[in-house]
């Protein structure tokens, strides 16, 4: 398995509170992604990073921010959690620029419940 660790694995939080999810990789991959998984929608991209301090928005970025201060860490922050952000969050990594593999590798997921 690719070296990707997500923390926490489970979290319950109250509406209006800030929440930060962490993704840590040991593969030195350039690209990191945050997706959310919801029934009937598959996975949808929230934000991604293509290098330290280089990030961009995905399809469902409203209400989320990210930061990447080190190659190995990619943080996802919900500034003020809402019930619609109850979901399973997946971090993924890839490094297509290496030319060896183009597929992404996924973490185990974080189940977030906003009550």
């Amino acid at each position: 398995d690719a070296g990707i660790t997500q923390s926490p694995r489970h979290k319950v939080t109250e509406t209006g509170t800030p929440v930060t999810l962490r993704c840590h990789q040991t593969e030195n991959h350039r690209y990191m992604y945050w997706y959310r998984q919801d029934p009937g929608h598959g996975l949808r991209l929230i934000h991604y990073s293509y290098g330290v301090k280089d990030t961009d928005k995905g399809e469902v970025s409203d209400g989320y921010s990210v930061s990447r201060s080190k190659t190995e860490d990619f943080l996802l922050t919900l500034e003020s959690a809402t019930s619609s952000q109850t979901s399973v969050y997946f971090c993924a990594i890839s490094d297509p620029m290496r030319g060896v593999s183009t597929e992404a590798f996924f973490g185990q997921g974080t189940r977030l419940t906003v009550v």
Partner: protein
Amino acid sequence: AQSVAQPEDQVNVAEGNPLTVKCTYSVSGNPYLFWYVQYPNRGLQFLLKYITGDNLVKGSYGFEAEFNKSQTSFHLKKPSALVSDSALYFCAVSPMDSSYKLIFGSGTRLLVRP
């Protein structure tokens, strides 16, 4: 808009029979195509990919997929299903823009009965 369609929410098949999980896509250019599998309470595991070349690609656990450019399809197949193949399968497309992101279908649950 770019999209991936998996028209079947669930596919049921008897063990030992062949299985097909369908996927079609609407993405411009020559995207890369992927299949991932998800077991309960787990992350997604890579199964196979199509980049270029032979339209039939082989992947992990005996799975294969057939790329059809004219029909913009990338169906997942296996000649003989196992009960242990029961899982959630996702088709994904990378438009190979500068983000190298994945666009996912909604997923198909495969149920293989003994």
